[in-house]
Protein backbone atom coordinates (compact mmCIF):
# COMPACT_ATOMS: atom_id res chain seq x y z
CA UNK A 1 0.00 0.00 0.00
CA UNK A 2 2.86 2.31 0.75
CA UNK A 3 4.29 1.65 -2.64
CA UNK A 4 0.97 2.52 -4.19
CA UNK A 5 0.97 5.73 -2.30
CA UNK A 6 4.51 6.44 -3.38
CA UNK A 7 3.63 5.84 -6.99
CA UNK A 8 0.63 8.10 -6.88
CA UNK A 9 2.57 10.81 -5.14
CA UNK A 10 5.21 10.52 -7.81
CA UNK A 11 2.57 10.78 -10.49
CA UNK A 12 0.96 13.68 -8.74
CA UNK A 13 4.28 15.47 -8.60
CA UNK A 14 4.75 14.86 -12.27
CA UNK A 15 1.44 16.49 -13.01
CA UNK A 16 2.44 19.47 -10.94
CA UNK A 17 5.87 19.82 -12.37
CA UNK A 18 6.31 22.86 -14.61
CA UNK A 19 6.15 21.79 -18.17
CA UNK A 20 7.77 23.43 -21.11
CA UNK A 21 4.54 25.17 -22.19
CA UNK A 22 3.97 28.74 -23.41
CA UNK A 23 1.61 30.57 -21.04
CA UNK A 24 -1.23 32.06 -23.02
CA UNK A 25 -1.76 35.63 -21.82
CA UNK A 26 -4.37 37.78 -23.50
CA UNK A 27 -4.99 41.52 -23.08
CA UNK A 28 -8.57 42.65 -23.54
CA UNK A 29 -8.53 46.42 -24.01
CA UNK A 30 -11.73 48.37 -24.42
CA UNK A 31 -13.30 51.73 -23.73
CA UNK A 32 -16.36 52.12 -21.53
CA UNK A 33 -19.83 52.25 -22.94
CA UNK A 34 -22.85 54.00 -21.55
CA UNK A 35 -24.64 51.29 -19.64
CA UNK A 36 -28.18 50.73 -20.86
CA UNK A 37 -30.35 50.67 -17.74
CA UNK A 38 -34.10 50.28 -17.42
CA UNK A 39 -35.46 52.62 -14.76
CA UNK A 40 -39.03 51.60 -14.23
CA UNK A 41 -41.63 53.92 -12.82
CA UNK A 42 -42.07 53.13 -9.15
CA UNK A 43 -45.31 51.89 -7.77
CA UNK A 44 -47.11 54.30 -5.49
CA UNK A 45 -47.80 58.03 -5.41
CA UNK A 46 -45.17 60.19 -7.09
CA UNK A 47 -43.50 57.05 -8.34
CA UNK A 48 -43.04 58.66 -11.72
CA UNK A 49 -41.41 61.75 -10.19
CA UNK A 50 -38.89 59.68 -8.30
CA UNK A 51 -37.94 57.55 -11.26
CA UNK A 52 -37.63 60.69 -13.42
CA UNK A 53 -35.19 62.24 -10.96
CA UNK A 54 -33.15 59.03 -10.81
CA UNK A 55 -33.18 58.75 -14.60
CA UNK A 56 -32.01 62.35 -15.02
CA UNK A 57 -29.18 61.92 -12.51
CA UNK A 58 -27.94 58.75 -14.16
CA UNK A 59 -28.21 60.22 -17.67
CA UNK A 60 -26.45 63.47 -16.74
CA UNK A 61 -23.58 61.53 -15.25
CA UNK A 62 -22.74 60.39 -18.76
CA UNK A 63 -22.23 56.84 -17.50
CA UNK A 64 -25.70 55.42 -18.03
CA UNK A 65 -28.20 55.38 -20.83
CA UNK A 66 -31.69 55.09 -19.39
CA UNK A 67 -33.83 53.11 -21.82
CA UNK A 68 -37.11 54.10 -23.33
CA UNK A 69 -39.87 52.48 -21.25
CA UNK A 70 -41.95 52.03 -24.38
CA UNK A 71 -39.96 48.92 -25.12
CA UNK A 72 -40.54 47.19 -21.78
CA UNK A 73 -42.73 44.12 -21.63
CA UNK A 74 -42.58 43.82 -17.84
CA UNK A 75 -44.97 45.99 -15.85
CA UNK A 76 -43.99 47.90 -12.75
CA UNK A 77 -46.22 45.77 -10.54
CA UNK A 78 -44.89 42.48 -11.88
CA UNK A 79 -42.04 40.61 -10.31
CA UNK A 80 -38.72 40.84 -12.02
CA UNK A 81 -38.32 38.10 -14.60
CA UNK A 82 -35.00 37.97 -16.41
CA UNK A 83 -36.77 36.44 -19.36
CA UNK A 84 -38.41 39.79 -20.00
CA UNK A 85 -35.08 41.54 -20.20
CA UNK A 86 -32.58 39.26 -21.88
CA UNK A 87 -32.20 40.42 -25.43
CA UNK A 88 -33.40 43.98 -24.75
CA UNK A 89 -29.83 45.13 -24.20
CA UNK A 90 -30.54 46.26 -20.64
CA UNK A 91 -27.66 45.58 -18.27
CA UNK A 92 -29.66 46.43 -15.16
CA UNK A 93 -33.25 47.08 -14.14
CA UNK A 94 -34.53 49.27 -11.31
CA UNK A 95 -37.94 48.84 -9.78
CA UNK A 96 -39.49 49.85 -6.50
CA UNK A 97 -42.21 51.49 -4.51
CA UNK A 98 -43.01 54.81 -2.90
CA UNK A 99 -45.09 55.02 0.22
CA UNK A 100 -46.54 58.00 2.01
CA UNK A 101 -46.91 57.00 5.63
CA UNK A 102 -46.54 60.29 7.42
CA UNK A 103 -43.08 60.33 5.98
CA UNK A 104 -41.81 59.27 2.60
CA UNK A 105 -40.56 55.72 2.28
CA UNK A 106 -38.78 54.75 -0.88
CA UNK A 107 -37.90 51.13 -1.63
CA UNK A 108 -35.59 50.53 -4.53
CA UNK A 109 -34.60 47.17 -6.04
CA UNK A 110 -31.83 46.84 -8.55
CA UNK A 111 -31.49 43.73 -10.73
CA UNK A 112 -28.62 42.57 -12.87
CA UNK A 113 -29.90 41.14 -16.14
CA UNK A 114 -26.85 39.06 -17.04
CA UNK A 115 -26.64 37.52 -13.60
CA UNK A 116 -30.44 37.35 -13.49
CA UNK A 117 -30.63 38.32 -9.85
CA UNK A 118 -31.32 41.08 -7.36
CA UNK A 119 -28.11 42.94 -6.58
CA UNK A 120 -29.36 45.72 -4.34
CA UNK A 121 -32.40 46.43 -2.25
CA UNK A 122 -32.62 49.55 -0.12
CA UNK A 123 -35.17 51.56 1.80
CA UNK A 124 -34.99 55.32 2.16
CA UNK A 125 -36.95 57.43 4.61
CA UNK A 126 -37.31 61.16 4.94
CA UNK A 127 -39.79 63.91 5.62
CA UNK A 128 -42.54 64.50 3.07
CA UNK A 129 -40.86 67.50 1.53
CA UNK A 130 -37.66 65.69 0.76
CA UNK A 131 -38.67 63.73 -2.29
CA UNK A 132 -35.79 65.08 -4.35
CA UNK A 133 -32.98 64.36 -1.85
CA UNK A 134 -34.47 60.89 -1.35
CA UNK A 135 -34.43 60.21 -5.07
CA UNK A 136 -30.89 61.54 -5.37
CA UNK A 137 -29.81 59.21 -2.55
CA UNK A 138 -31.22 56.24 -4.45
CA UNK A 139 -29.51 57.37 -7.65
CA UNK A 140 -26.23 57.64 -5.71
CA UNK A 141 -26.51 54.04 -4.53
CA UNK A 142 -27.42 52.69 -7.96
CA UNK A 143 -24.48 54.51 -9.47
CA UNK A 144 -22.09 53.27 -6.81
CA UNK A 145 -23.31 49.69 -7.00
CA UNK A 146 -22.72 49.46 -10.72
CA UNK A 147 -19.59 51.55 -11.16
CA UNK A 148 -17.93 50.99 -7.81
CA UNK A 149 -17.47 54.75 -7.43
CA UNK A 150 -19.23 57.37 -5.37
CA UNK A 151 -21.65 59.67 -7.15
CA UNK A 152 -22.37 63.37 -6.66
CA UNK A 153 -26.13 63.42 -6.96
CA UNK A 154 -26.61 64.86 -3.49
CA UNK A 155 -24.01 67.60 -3.81
CA UNK A 156 -24.74 71.31 -4.09
CA UNK A 157 -23.48 74.32 -5.98
CA UNK A 158 -23.22 77.72 -4.28
CA UNK A 159 -23.12 80.82 -6.45
CA UNK A 160 -23.60 84.59 -6.48
CA UNK A 161 -26.54 86.33 -8.07
CA UNK A 162 -26.93 90.02 -8.94
CA UNK A 163 -30.25 91.56 -8.05
CA UNK A 164 -30.16 94.52 -10.37
CA UNK A 165 -29.05 97.58 -8.47
CA UNK A 166 -29.87 96.13 -5.12
CA UNK A 167 -26.61 94.35 -4.83
CA UNK A 168 -25.54 90.75 -4.76
CA UNK A 169 -26.81 87.62 -2.96
CA UNK A 170 -25.47 84.16 -2.20
CA UNK A 171 -27.46 81.16 -3.44
CA UNK A 172 -27.31 77.38 -3.05
CA UNK A 173 -28.91 74.84 -5.39
CA UNK A 174 -28.80 71.06 -5.90
CA UNK A 175 -26.20 69.90 -8.40
CA UNK A 176 -28.90 69.71 -11.06
CA UNK A 177 -29.89 73.30 -10.41
CA UNK A 178 -33.11 72.43 -8.62
CA UNK A 179 -34.21 73.69 -5.20
CA UNK A 180 -32.35 76.98 -5.62
CA UNK A 181 -32.42 79.01 -2.39
CA UNK A 182 -31.15 82.47 -1.53
CA UNK A 183 -29.02 82.58 1.56
CA UNK A 184 -29.32 85.29 4.13
CA UNK A 185 -26.33 87.19 2.80
CA UNK A 186 -26.38 90.39 0.83
CA UNK A 187 -23.72 92.90 0.00
CA UNK A 188 -22.77 95.54 -2.50
CA UNK A 189 -20.58 92.93 -4.09
CA UNK A 190 -19.76 89.31 -3.35
CA UNK A 191 -17.02 87.06 -4.63
CA UNK A 192 -17.05 83.31 -5.10
CA UNK A 193 -17.84 81.33 -1.94
CA UNK A 194 -15.66 78.48 -0.67
CA UNK A 195 -17.00 75.48 1.26
CA UNK A 196 -15.42 74.02 4.40
CA UNK A 197 -14.40 70.38 3.84
CA UNK A 198 -17.35 69.17 5.94
CA UNK A 199 -19.69 71.35 3.88
CA UNK A 200 -21.23 72.85 7.01
CA UNK A 201 -20.07 76.40 6.34
CA UNK A 202 -19.17 78.60 3.49
CA UNK A 203 -16.69 81.41 3.47
CA UNK A 204 -16.97 84.32 1.06
CA UNK A 205 -15.68 87.81 0.38
CA UNK A 206 -18.04 90.74 0.62
CA UNK A 207 -17.50 94.39 -0.15
CA UNK A 208 -18.99 96.53 2.52
CA UNK A 209 -17.91 100.12 2.86
CA UNK A 210 -14.47 100.57 1.40
CA UNK A 211 -13.12 97.16 2.21
CA UNK A 212 -13.36 93.62 1.01
CA UNK A 213 -13.72 91.36 4.03
CA UNK A 214 -13.87 87.60 4.40
CA UNK A 215 -16.94 86.26 6.17
CA UNK A 216 -18.12 82.83 7.21
CA UNK A 217 -21.68 81.51 7.22
CA UNK A 218 -22.70 78.46 9.22
CA UNK A 219 -25.64 76.71 7.53
CA UNK A 220 -27.00 75.55 10.83
CA UNK A 221 -27.22 79.09 12.14
CA UNK A 222 -27.47 81.09 8.90
CA UNK A 223 -25.72 84.03 10.48
CA UNK A 224 -22.64 85.56 8.94
CA UNK A 225 -19.52 86.28 10.96
CA UNK A 226 -16.40 88.13 9.92
CA UNK A 227 -13.42 85.84 9.52
CA UNK A 228 -10.71 88.22 8.31
CA UNK A 229 -11.34 91.95 8.60
CA UNK A 230 -8.13 93.79 7.76
CA UNK A 231 -7.00 96.66 5.62
CA UNK A 232 -7.27 96.35 1.88
CA UNK A 233 -8.77 93.61 -0.23
CA UNK A 234 -8.92 90.14 1.28
CA UNK A 235 -10.17 87.42 -1.06
CA UNK A 236 -10.98 83.92 0.26
CA UNK A 237 -9.40 80.95 -1.50
CA UNK A 238 -9.60 77.19 -0.83
CA UNK A 239 -9.58 75.50 2.55
CA UNK A 240 -6.84 73.00 3.27
CA UNK A 241 -8.13 69.40 3.57
CA UNK A 242 -8.15 69.47 7.38
CA UNK A 243 -10.34 72.55 7.41
CA UNK A 244 -8.03 74.36 9.84
CA UNK A 245 -6.36 76.66 7.36
CA UNK A 246 -7.61 78.87 4.58
CA UNK A 247 -5.57 80.01 1.59
CA UNK A 248 -6.38 83.59 0.61
CA UNK A 249 -5.02 86.67 -1.08
CA UNK A 250 -4.68 90.09 0.52
CA UNK A 251 -3.51 93.55 -0.44
CA UNK A 252 -2.88 94.49 3.18
CA UNK A 253 0.77 95.12 2.41
CA UNK A 254 0.10 97.01 -0.78
CA UNK A 255 0.16 94.68 -3.72
CA UNK A 256 -1.90 91.51 -3.55
CA UNK A 257 -0.10 88.41 -2.24
CA UNK A 258 -1.00 84.86 -1.22
CA UNK A 259 -1.39 84.13 2.49
CA UNK A 260 -2.45 81.15 4.57
CA UNK A 261 -4.68 81.85 7.56
CA UNK A 262 -4.48 79.57 10.58
CA UNK A 263 -8.08 79.93 11.65
CA UNK A 264 -7.74 78.82 15.26
CA UNK A 265 -4.77 81.08 15.93
CA UNK A 266 -5.89 83.83 13.53
CA UNK A 267 -2.38 84.00 12.20
CA UNK A 268 -1.53 84.99 8.66
CA UNK A 269 1.46 83.46 6.95
CA UNK A 270 2.73 85.17 3.82
CA UNK A 271 3.44 82.87 0.87
CA UNK A 272 4.50 85.29 -1.89
CA UNK A 273 6.52 88.45 -1.80
CA UNK A 274 6.50 89.42 -5.42
CA UNK A 275 6.03 92.98 -6.46
CA UNK A 276 3.17 92.27 -8.75
CA UNK A 277 -0.15 90.55 -8.33
CA UNK A 278 -0.51 87.13 -6.71
CA UNK A 279 -4.11 86.05 -6.32
CA UNK A 280 -6.66 83.17 -6.44
CA UNK A 281 -5.01 80.31 -4.52
CA UNK A 282 -6.42 76.80 -4.97
CA UNK A 283 -5.23 73.92 -2.79
CA UNK A 284 -4.37 70.41 -4.05
CA UNK A 285 -6.44 67.57 -2.55
CA UNK A 286 -3.47 66.30 -0.52
CA UNK A 287 -2.93 69.77 0.89
CA UNK A 288 0.71 69.84 -0.18
CA UNK A 289 0.52 72.28 -3.07
CA UNK A 290 -1.09 75.55 -4.02
CA UNK A 291 -1.81 76.74 -7.54
CA UNK A 292 -2.32 80.49 -7.97
CA UNK A 293 -2.18 83.38 -10.43
CA UNK A 294 0.87 85.63 -10.72
CA UNK A 295 1.80 88.34 -13.17
CA UNK A 296 5.51 88.25 -12.30
CA UNK A 297 6.30 87.38 -15.92
CA UNK A 298 4.42 90.41 -17.17
CA UNK A 299 1.02 88.81 -17.76
CA UNK A 300 -1.24 86.72 -15.50
CA UNK A 301 -0.25 83.04 -15.57
CA UNK A 302 -0.87 80.04 -13.34
CA UNK A 303 1.92 78.95 -10.98
CA UNK A 304 2.28 76.24 -8.36
CA UNK A 305 4.17 76.19 -5.10
CA UNK A 306 4.25 73.92 -2.10
CA UNK A 307 2.17 74.64 0.97
CA UNK A 308 5.12 76.36 2.67
CA UNK A 309 5.59 78.78 -0.19
CA UNK A 310 8.67 77.15 -1.69
CA UNK A 311 9.34 75.57 -5.09
CA UNK A 312 7.43 78.08 -7.13
CA UNK A 313 7.03 76.92 -10.66
CA UNK A 314 5.12 78.11 -13.70
CA UNK A 315 2.25 75.88 -14.88
CA UNK A 316 0.80 77.65 -17.93
CA UNK A 317 2.95 78.57 -20.88
CA UNK A 318 0.46 79.11 -23.65
CA UNK A 319 -1.77 82.11 -23.99
CA UNK A 320 -1.24 85.56 -22.60
CA UNK A 321 -3.87 85.63 -19.88
CA UNK A 322 -4.56 82.64 -17.61
CA UNK A 323 -6.43 83.06 -14.33
CA UNK A 324 -8.98 81.48 -11.97
CA UNK A 325 -7.36 78.08 -11.29
CA UNK A 326 -9.23 75.24 -9.57
CA UNK A 327 -7.58 71.98 -8.48
CA UNK A 328 -9.62 68.82 -9.02
CA UNK A 329 -10.45 67.01 -5.73
CA UNK A 330 -9.07 63.80 -7.24
CA UNK A 331 -5.86 65.63 -8.04
CA UNK A 332 -5.44 64.74 -11.68
CA UNK A 333 -6.41 68.05 -13.29
CA UNK A 334 -6.24 71.80 -12.78
CA UNK A 335 -8.94 73.82 -14.52
CA UNK A 336 -8.56 77.52 -15.27
CA UNK A 337 -9.84 80.32 -17.44
CA UNK A 338 -7.60 81.30 -20.34
CA UNK A 339 -7.93 83.97 -22.93
CA UNK A 340 -8.28 82.57 -26.41
CA UNK A 341 -9.29 84.41 -29.56
CA UNK A 342 -10.41 87.44 -27.64
CA UNK A 343 -12.59 85.50 -25.22
CA UNK A 344 -12.15 83.56 -21.99
CA UNK A 345 -12.47 79.77 -22.15
CA UNK A 346 -12.18 76.94 -19.63
CA UNK A 347 -9.04 74.85 -19.94
CA UNK A 348 -7.75 71.83 -18.04
CA UNK A 349 -4.13 70.89 -17.63
CA UNK A 350 -2.27 68.18 -15.73
CA UNK A 351 -0.45 69.32 -12.60
CA UNK A 352 2.88 68.98 -14.38
CA UNK A 353 1.77 71.48 -17.00
CA UNK A 354 1.19 69.07 -19.88
CA UNK A 355 -2.02 67.82 -21.42
CA UNK A 356 -3.60 71.22 -22.05
CA UNK A 357 -7.21 70.96 -23.24
CA UNK A 358 -9.76 73.62 -24.07
CA UNK A 359 -13.27 72.62 -23.01
CA UNK A 360 -15.50 75.53 -24.04
CA UNK A 361 -15.80 77.64 -27.16
CA UNK A 362 -19.00 79.64 -26.99
CA UNK A 363 -19.13 83.06 -25.30
CA UNK A 364 -16.95 83.86 -22.29
CA UNK A 365 -16.43 81.06 -19.78
CA UNK A 366 -14.74 81.67 -16.45
CA UNK A 367 -14.40 80.65 -12.81
CA UNK A 368 -14.33 76.82 -13.03
CA UNK A 369 -14.93 74.66 -9.96
CA UNK A 370 -14.77 70.82 -9.80
CA UNK A 371 -17.28 68.36 -8.34
CA UNK A 372 -15.92 66.18 -5.51
CA UNK A 373 -15.40 63.19 -7.80
CA UNK A 374 -13.55 65.35 -10.31
CA UNK A 375 -15.92 64.32 -13.09
CA UNK A 376 -17.81 67.59 -13.43
CA UNK A 377 -17.00 71.30 -13.61
CA UNK A 378 -19.30 74.19 -12.84
CA UNK A 379 -18.44 77.58 -14.32
CA UNK A 380 -19.75 81.00 -15.35
CA UNK A 381 -20.84 81.46 -18.95
CA UNK A 382 -22.25 84.47 -20.78
CA UNK A 383 -23.07 82.58 -23.96
CA UNK A 384 -26.75 83.35 -23.43
CA UNK A 385 -26.15 87.08 -23.01
CA UNK A 386 -25.96 87.77 -19.29
CA UNK A 387 -23.81 85.67 -16.99
CA UNK A 388 -25.25 82.29 -15.94
CA UNK A 389 -23.99 79.22 -14.07
CA UNK A 390 -23.22 76.15 -16.19
CA UNK A 391 -22.22 72.56 -15.50
CA UNK A 392 -20.32 70.18 -17.79
CA UNK A 393 -18.37 66.94 -17.51
CA UNK A 394 -14.66 67.44 -17.03
CA UNK A 395 -14.01 66.37 -20.59
CA UNK A 396 -16.15 69.28 -21.80
CA UNK A 397 -19.22 67.23 -22.74
CA UNK A 398 -22.77 67.81 -21.56
CA UNK A 399 -22.64 71.60 -21.08
CA UNK A 400 -25.89 72.92 -19.68
CA UNK A 401 -27.16 75.82 -17.60
CA UNK A 402 -28.27 75.12 -14.07
CA UNK A 403 -29.04 78.62 -12.75
CA UNK A 404 -32.64 79.81 -13.23
CA UNK A 405 -33.43 81.36 -16.55
CA UNK A 406 -33.35 85.14 -16.43
CA UNK A 407 -31.16 85.31 -13.32
CA UNK A 408 -27.73 86.89 -13.54
CA UNK A 409 -25.67 84.24 -11.76
CA UNK A 410 -21.92 83.70 -11.56
CA UNK A 411 -18.92 82.67 -9.43
CA UNK A 412 -20.12 79.14 -8.63
CA UNK A 413 -18.46 76.67 -6.24
CA UNK A 414 -19.25 72.93 -5.98
CA UNK A 415 -19.75 71.51 -2.47
CA UNK A 416 -17.18 68.94 -1.33
CA UNK A 417 -19.85 66.36 -0.49
Amino acid at each position, binding site marked *: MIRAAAVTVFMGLLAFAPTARAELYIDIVSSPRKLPIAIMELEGPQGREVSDIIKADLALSGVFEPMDPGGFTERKDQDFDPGNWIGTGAEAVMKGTVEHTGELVLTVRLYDVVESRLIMEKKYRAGKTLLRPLSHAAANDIYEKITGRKAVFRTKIAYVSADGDKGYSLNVADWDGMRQRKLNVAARSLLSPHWTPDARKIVYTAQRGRKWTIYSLDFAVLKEEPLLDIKGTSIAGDFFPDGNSLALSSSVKGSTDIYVLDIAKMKLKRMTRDMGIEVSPTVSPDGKSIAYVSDRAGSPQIYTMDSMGYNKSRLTNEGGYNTSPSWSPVGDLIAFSGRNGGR*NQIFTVWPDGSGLRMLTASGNNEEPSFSPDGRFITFTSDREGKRTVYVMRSDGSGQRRISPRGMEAFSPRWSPR
Partner: protein
Amino acid sequence: MRRFLVLLAILAVTAYGCTPRTIVDDQGAGAAGEAGAQGQAQDGQVTIEPISDSVSSTDVTASSGDRLTDIANRYKTSSQGVPEFGDIYFDFDSYSIQGDYRRVLDDLSSWLTSNNAILLVEGHCDDRGTREYNLALGDRRALSIKDYLLASGVPDLKIETVSYGEERPVCKDESESCWTKNRRGHFVIEVVR
Protein backbone atom coordinates in the same frame (compact mmCIF):
# COMPACT_ATOMS: atom_id res chain seq x y z
CA MET B 1 -14.49 119.12 -18.14
CA ARG B 2 -16.09 116.61 -20.40
CA ARG B 3 -13.97 117.71 -23.34
CA PHE B 4 -10.94 117.27 -21.19
CA LEU B 5 -11.97 113.76 -20.37
CA VAL B 6 -12.62 112.95 -24.00
CA LEU B 7 -9.20 114.26 -24.87
CA LEU B 8 -7.70 112.09 -22.22
CA ALA B 9 -9.61 109.11 -23.53
CA ILE B 10 -8.35 109.67 -27.05
CA LEU B 11 -4.82 110.06 -25.74
CA ALA B 12 -5.19 106.86 -23.76
CA VAL B 13 -6.34 104.93 -26.79
CA THR B 14 -3.59 106.22 -29.00
CA ALA B 15 -0.98 105.59 -26.37
CA TYR B 16 -2.11 101.94 -26.00
CA GLY B 17 0.57 99.43 -25.28
CA CYS B 18 3.70 101.49 -25.38
CA THR B 19 4.34 102.43 -21.83
CA PRO B 20 7.00 100.64 -19.82
CA ARG B 21 5.88 99.44 -16.44
CA THR B 22 6.60 100.91 -13.09
CA ILE B 23 7.54 98.25 -10.62
CA VAL B 24 7.38 99.30 -7.05
CA ASP B 25 8.12 97.29 -4.00
CA ASP B 26 5.35 98.16 -1.63
CA GLN B 27 7.62 98.06 1.37
CA GLY B 28 9.93 100.66 -0.06
CA ALA B 29 7.22 102.98 -1.28
CA GLY B 30 6.70 105.08 1.82
CA ALA B 31 10.40 105.73 2.35
CA ALA B 32 10.94 106.58 -1.30
CA GLY B 33 8.12 109.08 -1.19
CA GLU B 34 9.65 110.98 1.68
CA ALA B 35 13.03 111.00 0.08
CA GLY B 36 11.70 112.54 -3.09
CA ALA B 37 11.88 111.42 -6.68
CA GLN B 38 14.75 110.91 -9.09
CA GLY B 39 15.13 107.14 -9.18
CA GLN B 40 16.39 106.22 -5.76
CA ALA B 41 17.00 102.54 -5.48
CA GLN B 42 16.15 100.91 -2.18
CA ASP B 43 17.10 97.28 -1.42
CA GLY B 44 17.84 96.89 -5.09
CA GLN B 45 14.17 96.32 -5.58
CA VAL B 46 12.67 99.71 -5.98
CA THR B 47 12.72 101.42 -9.32
CA ILE B 48 10.83 104.61 -9.57
CA GLU B 49 10.72 106.30 -12.89
CA PRO B 50 11.94 109.84 -12.70
CA ILE B 51 9.21 112.41 -12.59
CA SER B 52 9.32 114.66 -15.63
CA ASP B 53 11.44 117.68 -15.20
CA SER B 54 8.57 120.04 -15.57
CA VAL B 55 7.35 119.17 -12.15
CA SER B 56 9.40 119.27 -9.03
CA SER B 57 8.60 119.79 -5.45
CA THR B 58 10.16 123.19 -5.66
CA ASP B 59 7.27 124.41 -7.76
CA VAL B 60 4.87 123.74 -4.95
CA THR B 61 6.91 125.15 -2.17
CA ALA B 62 8.04 128.21 -4.13
CA SER B 63 4.79 129.50 -5.46
CA SER B 64 2.01 127.37 -4.12
CA GLY B 65 -0.47 130.17 -4.31
CA ASP B 66 0.06 130.60 -8.05
CA ARG B 67 -0.13 126.93 -8.59
CA LEU B 68 -3.34 126.49 -6.73
CA THR B 69 -4.92 129.27 -8.70
CA ASP B 70 -3.76 127.45 -11.81
CA ILE B 71 -5.44 124.33 -10.67
CA ALA B 72 -8.62 126.12 -9.74
CA ASN B 73 -8.73 127.46 -13.23
CA ARG B 74 -8.00 124.15 -14.88
CA TYR B 75 -10.60 122.06 -13.13
CA LYS B 76 -14.23 122.45 -12.48
CA THR B 77 -14.77 123.02 -8.82
CA SER B 78 -17.49 121.56 -6.68
CA SER B 79 -19.67 123.64 -4.39
CA GLN B 80 -17.27 122.89 -1.59
CA GLY B 81 -14.39 124.24 -3.52
CA VAL B 82 -12.94 120.85 -4.33
CA PRO B 83 -11.55 120.48 -7.87
CA GLU B 84 -12.93 117.56 -9.84
CA PHE B 85 -9.79 115.79 -10.82
CA GLY B 86 -10.81 113.40 -13.60
CA ASP B 87 -10.18 109.73 -13.94
CA ILE B 88 -6.86 108.61 -15.24
CA TYR B 89 -6.76 105.61 -17.56
CA PHE B 90 -4.67 102.52 -17.83
CA ASP B 91 -3.69 100.15 -20.58
CA PHE B 92 -5.14 96.65 -20.67
CA ASP B 93 -3.73 94.53 -17.84
CA SER B 94 -1.40 97.36 -16.89
CA TYR B 95 -0.95 99.44 -13.76
CA SER B 96 1.68 101.86 -14.88
CA ILE B 97 0.94 105.55 -14.96
CA GLN B 98 1.02 106.90 -18.46
CA GLY B 99 2.83 110.11 -19.20
CA ASP B 100 -0.29 112.05 -20.14
CA TYR B 101 -1.71 111.74 -16.70
CA ARG B 102 1.21 112.96 -14.76
CA ARG B 103 0.02 116.49 -15.01
CA VAL B 104 -3.23 115.57 -13.27
CA LEU B 105 -1.46 113.68 -10.58
CA ASP B 106 0.92 116.54 -10.02
CA ASP B 107 -1.98 118.93 -9.70
CA LEU B 108 -3.67 116.58 -7.34
CA SER B 109 -0.52 116.29 -5.33
CA SER B 110 -0.19 120.03 -5.06
CA TRP B 111 -3.75 120.49 -4.01
CA LEU B 112 -3.65 117.75 -1.42
CA THR B 113 -0.55 118.98 0.28
CA SER B 114 -2.13 122.40 0.63
CA ASN B 115 -5.50 121.29 1.80
CA ASN B 116 -6.91 119.41 4.68
CA ALA B 117 -8.52 116.53 2.87
CA ILE B 118 -8.40 112.79 2.45
CA LEU B 119 -8.08 111.28 -0.99
CA LEU B 120 -9.64 107.94 -1.81
CA VAL B 121 -8.16 106.38 -4.91
CA GLU B 122 -10.46 103.83 -6.56
CA GLY B 123 -8.99 101.24 -8.92
CA HIS B 124 -11.26 99.87 -11.64
CA CYS B 125 -10.92 97.43 -14.56
CA ASP B 126 -12.73 96.37 -17.69
CA ASP B 127 -14.58 93.06 -17.50
CA ARG B 128 -12.38 91.08 -19.82
CA GLY B 129 -10.42 89.43 -17.05
CA THR B 130 -11.83 87.35 -14.23
CA ARG B 131 -13.35 88.89 -11.13
CA GLU B 132 -10.67 88.04 -8.59
CA TYR B 133 -7.76 88.95 -10.78
CA ASN B 134 -9.47 92.19 -11.71
CA LEU B 135 -10.02 93.02 -8.07
CA ALA B 136 -6.31 92.59 -7.48
CA LEU B 137 -5.51 94.59 -10.60
CA GLY B 138 -7.73 97.43 -9.43
CA ASP B 139 -5.83 97.39 -6.14
CA ARG B 140 -2.57 97.52 -8.01
CA ARG B 141 -3.67 100.47 -10.10
CA ALA B 142 -4.78 102.38 -7.04
CA LEU B 143 -1.46 101.58 -5.45
CA SER B 144 0.46 102.89 -8.43
CA ILE B 145 -1.32 106.17 -8.15
CA LYS B 146 -0.76 106.35 -4.41
CA ASP B 147 2.93 105.64 -4.83
CA TYR B 148 3.24 108.42 -7.34
CA LEU B 149 1.54 110.85 -5.01
CA LEU B 150 3.65 109.80 -2.08
CA ALA B 151 6.74 110.27 -4.17
CA SER B 152 5.69 113.81 -4.89
CA GLY B 153 5.29 114.69 -1.28
CA VAL B 154 1.76 113.87 -0.24
CA PRO B 155 1.70 112.44 3.29
CA ASP B 156 0.67 108.82 3.53
CA LEU B 157 -2.23 109.39 5.88
CA LYS B 158 -3.97 111.56 3.34
CA ILE B 159 -4.32 108.74 0.80
CA GLU B 160 -6.58 105.69 0.95
CA THR B 161 -7.10 103.11 -1.74
CA VAL B 162 -9.85 100.68 -2.66
CA SER B 163 -10.42 98.37 -5.57
CA TYR B 164 -13.70 97.65 -7.26
CA GLY B 165 -12.30 95.43 -9.90
CA GLU B 166 -14.78 94.96 -12.72
CA GLU B 167 -17.73 95.40 -10.36
CA ARG B 168 -18.55 99.05 -11.01
CA PRO B 169 -18.32 99.65 -14.74
CA VAL B 170 -19.33 103.00 -16.19
CA CYS B 171 -20.51 101.26 -19.32
CA LYS B 172 -21.25 97.69 -20.31
CA ASP B 173 -20.64 97.47 -24.04
CA GLU B 174 -18.26 95.00 -25.54
CA SER B 175 -16.20 97.67 -27.24
CA GLU B 176 -12.75 99.07 -26.98
CA SER B 177 -13.97 102.54 -26.08
CA CYS B 178 -16.10 101.19 -23.26
CA TRP B 179 -13.36 98.97 -21.99
CA THR B 180 -10.98 101.88 -21.95
CA LYS B 181 -13.39 103.95 -19.93
CA ASN B 182 -13.60 101.25 -17.33
CA ARG B 183 -9.85 100.82 -16.88
CA ARG B 184 -9.57 103.80 -14.63
CA GLY B 185 -8.33 105.32 -11.44
CA HIS B 186 -10.99 107.44 -9.87
CA PHE B 187 -10.57 110.07 -7.16
CA VAL B 188 -12.89 110.81 -4.28
CA ILE B 189 -11.89 113.66 -2.04
CA GLU B 190 -13.24 114.25 1.42
CA VAL B 191 -12.49 117.57 2.93
CA VAL B 192 -11.72 117.46 6.58
CA ARG B 193 -13.09 120.38 8.50
